[in-house]
């Protein structure tokens, strides 16, 4: 609160230049002492960042040679040149990555702010934070770690939101011309943006879990329908798309309150779909973001409701093609539509149903629910599922106009053999077109590139229509947080290495060869008794796969956070629970102080928790921000080949022995521990490469001999199977003979002999001199 009075005259006298500022009182009810870095600034954790960056040096891969961000330029920065402002290429690349991460963090943060505001208005400011009842006592591990506060109600989340908004603004300001000039400091700021992003994610998800009663850390969250084939097309269908669930919640509530439940299908794509099925398991998920175009063009949706993030910019144009009205519901994505927030609902409905307007912007979420439901019911009989997909006859006719210029293939992000398929179509054979369906990411760049204006994506969808209509799977609804008791059960086996790793398949659907690869990887590692976590579009892709007996992986594997589980935490914002689980292992299992104690907890996770993130189809700036939050915790992230376009990797060098020393906290000695984990951010070319690397990156300095032997078994086995050979670096991961898997003893011993291997030891590993106990005792 800020009161300023320039001049006040009263009977008592005159008051001039009076100013009073009162900050919000933050209740300090934490049982534990707050650590050294509550609400850290951009530089408080800089030293920790530099320790990581010393091991994992950036490898920059510029997309272009110039900087064109100010009117000094454009400036050619290639091959050692500097711009007019003095910036070099390395700093420019890290600056661009920081910009991307700021965009990502700001997006999650603005989403969290909107959700908290909406939920405070809907449910009340004092709504308790409850993400798992008695099973979750550490309810906001990321926020507690970073901010040093323990929010108990929705309104208390605002303190952390205020902090995050300040930090994102600061970070963004450092990208201005003439500000930060060092690539390594840009990198540190990228980590900071990622950390802020994780707080924002956590706030968004714990707010919606608490206030909307989404599954609360439930390993047996309901199995819900996913796939276009699960939609009952005989009913009016509403499609929701984006990441912010309030409009979808209001649609479901309106249908329930007005006796329309079961009469209208509520279907979704992307993370809104995750969250609406967490709210109402009868809603249906159509698929990940790449299903957007094909679903609209199928003509099935009668009304399209867009909220925010990952929505196609041409969604209004696509909606017009099938005469489905579009309702925009977020100030962040208005699509040029007239705002009708304050108009009576029935008038808006009439305008949409009559076609007077193709779409509207409504910023009152309850009104969105009412308008969407009423419009769907009224327009469905008129639309009759009008689709924008050509008939086979028309495809054959139109395909004959193809000039064979290859432009479609050049435009395709995955170099799919489109032209060949179109050529075959002229002969009436649509098999090759149908074959592209699985690997097509639905971007429609082929259509934009075609000089004949052929609707190539629609050709593919039509050719695969039967398959598309048969898409019907089950996915476990996002469970939210990991229970404290689950952490207690698996904390020891993870830290000792006996559960070989925690692998999180996260992020978008920009896959190089279709989503099936995500499912195959998830199943492979679950079968190997790793803990597999999924979220976002990757969680959906993992579901759209027939495993044994035609079951989806979520039916075949339990949803518990334990060896062999496949755990869907939920939407993008639920990624915070993955970081939260790693943090809780340090806090609950190892009893490290949590609040405001970032560096120590990150040091613990980096050296002990064999966790790896895999963002196989990472596409967005949000994905970059999420990844950078994991980097600061010392958790490696693997991206698919398209991830190389993020322009920089953080790569270790296993051939440089000096990079791989840690302190032994017991003695203060510096001990060589091998390249574990070898990389912090890494793009794999193929699924096979990624799988071997996942197994390798799960190794940590703290692994016991038994744990390391288990991890080496998987690493060597996968390498033998997928690369056709034993890893040529296996000697670097053997510290003592007891590390060697017993079934591979002879083979590995021979390699060790050839490599002149020397026995090492297993320290109590830390990168932080202040954690050395011997020094403490001496002082």
């Amino acid at each position, binding site marked *: 609160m800020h009161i300023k009075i320039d001049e006040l005259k009263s009977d008592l006298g005159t008051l001039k230049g009076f100013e009073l500022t009162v900050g919000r009182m933050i209740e300090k009810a934490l049982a534990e002492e707050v650590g050294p870095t509550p609400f850290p600034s951009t530089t408080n954790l800089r030293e920790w960042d530099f320790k990581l960056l010393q091991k994992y040096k950036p490898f920059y891969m510029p997309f272009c040679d110039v900087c064109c961000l100010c009117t000094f330029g454009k400036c050619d920065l*290639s*091959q050692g040149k500097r711009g007019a402002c003095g910036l070099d290429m390395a700093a420019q690349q890290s600056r661009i990555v920081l910009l991307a991460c700021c965009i990502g963090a700001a997006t999650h943060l603005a989403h969290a702010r909107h959700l908290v505001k909406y939920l405070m208005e809907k449910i009340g400011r004092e709504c308790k934070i409850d993400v798992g009842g008695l099973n979750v006592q550490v309810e906001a591990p990321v926020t507690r770690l970073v901010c040093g506060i323990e929010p108990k109600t929705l309104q208390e989340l605002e303190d952390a939101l205020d902090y995050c908004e300040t930090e994102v603004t600061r970070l963004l300001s450092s990208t201005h011309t003439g500000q930060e000039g060092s690539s390594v400091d840009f990198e540190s700021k990228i980590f900071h943006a990622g950390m802020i992003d994780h707080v924002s994610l956590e706030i968004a998800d714990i707010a919606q879990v608490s206030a909307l009663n989404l599954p609360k850390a439930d390993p047996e969250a309901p199995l819900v329908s996913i796939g276009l084939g699960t939609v009952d097309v005989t009913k009016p269908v509403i499609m929701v798309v984006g990441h912010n669930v309030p409009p979808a919640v209001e649609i479901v509530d309106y249908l329930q309150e007005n006796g329309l439940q079961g009469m209208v299908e509520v279907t979704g794509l992307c993370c809104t779909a995750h969250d609406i099925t967490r709210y109402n398991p009868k809603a249906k998920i159509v698929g990940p973001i790449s299903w957007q175009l094909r679903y609209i063009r199928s003509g099935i949706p009668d009304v399209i409701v867009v909220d925010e993030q990952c929505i196609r910019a041409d969604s209004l144009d696509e909606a017009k093609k099938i005469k489905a009205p579009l309702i925009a519901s977020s100030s962040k994505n208005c699509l040029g539509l007239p705002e009708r927030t304050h108009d009576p609902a029935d008038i808006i409905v009439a305008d949409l149903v009559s076609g007077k307007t193709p779409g509207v912007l409504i910023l009152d979420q309850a009104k969105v629910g009412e308008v969407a439901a009423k419009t769907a019911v009224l327009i469905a009989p008129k639309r009759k599922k009008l689709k924008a997909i050509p008939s086979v006859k028309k495809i054959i006719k139109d395909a004959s106009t193809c000039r064979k210029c290859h432009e479609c293939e050049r435009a395709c992000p995955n170099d799919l053999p489109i032209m060949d398929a179109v050529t075959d179509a002229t002969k009436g054979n649509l098999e090759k077109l149908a074959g592209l369906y699985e690997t097509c990411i639905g971007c429609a760049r082929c259509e934009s590139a075609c000089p004949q204006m052929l609707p190539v994506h629609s050709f593919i969808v039509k050719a695969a229509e039967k398959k598309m209509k048969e898409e019907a799977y089950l996915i476990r609804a996002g469970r939210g947080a990991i229970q404290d008791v689950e952490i207690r059960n698996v904390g020891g086996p993870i830290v000792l290495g006996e559960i070989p790793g925690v692998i999180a398949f996260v992020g978008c659907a920009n896959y190089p060869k279709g989503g099936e690869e995500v499912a195959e990887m998830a199943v492979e590692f679950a079968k190997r008794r790793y803990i597999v976590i999924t979220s976002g579009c990757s969680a959906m892709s993992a579901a759209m796969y027939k495993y044994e007996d035609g079951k989806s992986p979520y039916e075949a594997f339990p949803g518990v956070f334990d060896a062999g589980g496949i755990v869907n935490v939920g939407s993008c914002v639920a990624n915070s629970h993955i970081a939260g689980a790693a943090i809780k292992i340090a806090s609950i299992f190892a009893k490290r102080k949590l609040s405001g104690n970032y560096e120590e907890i990150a040091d613990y996770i980096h050296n002990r928790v064999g966790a790896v993130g895999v963002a196989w189809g990472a596409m967005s700036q949000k994905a970059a921000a999420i990844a950078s939050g994991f980097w600061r915790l010392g958790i490696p992230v693997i991206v698919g080949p398209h991830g190389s376009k993020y322009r920089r990797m953080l790569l270790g*060098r296993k*051939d440089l022995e000096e990079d791989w020393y840690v302190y032994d906290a017991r003695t203060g000695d510096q001990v060589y521990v091998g390249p574990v984990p070898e990389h912090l951010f890494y793009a794999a*070319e193929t699924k096979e490469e990624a799988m071997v690397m996942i197994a390798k990156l799960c190794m940590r300095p703290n692994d016991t001999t038994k744990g390391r032997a288990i991890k080496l078994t998987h690493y060597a086995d996968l390498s033998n199977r997928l690369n056709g*050979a034993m890893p040529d670096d296996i000697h670097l991961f053997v510290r003592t003979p007891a590390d060697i898997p017993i079934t591979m003893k002879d083979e590995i011993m021979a390699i060790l002999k050839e490599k002149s291997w020397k026995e090492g030891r297993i320290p109590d590993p830390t990168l932080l001199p202040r954690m050395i106990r011997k020094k403490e005792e001496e002082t």
Partner: protein
Amino acid sequence: MVKKAKRPILVVGHKVVEMDLGKEGFIDYLIRFAKATKVPLVATAHVGKEFIGRGFQPAACMPSMDIANRLRDTEWKGLDGIGQYDLALFVGLPYYMEWVILSGLKNFASELKTISLDRFYQPNASWSFPNLGLEEWKKSLNAIENELKGR
């Protein structure tokens, strides 16, 4: 450029498995090329298995990110411990991945020359084919092979 190079290296991505030259697979051509020119061959991703299966042991099997990261380091001693390479030939990586790797090397490995043997133009390479039809590309590859025999 290859003839002049003192320390060339050939980096081969997984897409070579999908490339067909008609009479033979592209991978067979590359084996012949590597043997004829004595250029050490690095197989990225999981493509090493394909070479080994054909009785050819690559000089190294390593991820494309790792070999690129080492090629930009002037202090790297190479696969054989002798020293950094002065020419890197790339082929068979996903187009966009090769693009950014070549850009990284162009900007941060000033001593290194790069060549793309792929069918589509790579502007960040020191030398690249233009966009070529399949037949033209095959002819060009054969010409290079004949030129470099006994290098």
